[in-house]
């Protein structure tokens, strides 16, 4: 079924390890986003991408790396995981953001615990 999928859904990792969260969308949307959600902070933008090979920082990008070699994939990498990166991570996609009425579609989330 078409949509936006994230993997893994749940992950426990150790401090200092590299972790990659995958995001795949089947709509060929131009824009893709990564957010993290922590209690009391709502959704905070980590990185976004306007098209393949174009990425830009969001509100809380330190410690994260992204790539977008293909339109449909937008992996998020924690190069050296820290406990403060324990969070729920949401990937999202949308078509031309500047146009009115374009829905932002979210994945189901990836629960990451860093121990």
């Amino acid at each position, binding site marked *: 079924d078409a949509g936006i999928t994230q993997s893994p859904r749940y992950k426990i990792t150790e401090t200092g390890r590299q972790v990659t969260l995958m995001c795949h969308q089947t709509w060929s949307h131009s*824009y893709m986003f990564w957010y993290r959600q922590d209690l009391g902070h*709502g*959704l905070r*933008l980590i990185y976004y991408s306007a098209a393949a090979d174009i990425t830009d920082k969001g509100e809380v990008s330190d410690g994260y790396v992204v790539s977008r070699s293909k339109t449909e994939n937008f992996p998020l990498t924690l190069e050296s995981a820290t406990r403060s990166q324990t969070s729920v991570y*949401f990937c999202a996609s949308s078509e031309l953001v*500047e146009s*009115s009425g374009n*829905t*932002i579609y979210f*994945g189901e989330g990836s629960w990451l615990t860093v121990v």
Partner: protein
Amino acid sequence: TQLLEQSPQFLSIQEGENLTVYCNSSSVFSSLQWYRQEPGEGPVLLVTVVTGGEVKKLKRLTFQFGDARKDSSLHITAAQPGDTGLYLCPNRDDKIIFGKGTRLHILP
């Protein structure tokens, strides 16, 4: 940079009561969307409003866009436990910023 503020940040009310939550911006919205996030899931679009003064209804939910397109309200009539969730109104720049939203809890 568009600054967004949602209020209240938290709201806990009894089933059957009415409530209103607000989204205010420092600048004009080209369009405004409301999303609801239920526990354990990603946010889902509820409505998009485009025209200043526009009112849209979705069952017991009434959305109003301010005349100046800098604010919006969401009114829920006879709240039900299924309305529990986080209500969000993002900006509409390239960087889609959601902010903290309004966390609503309806007590049965």
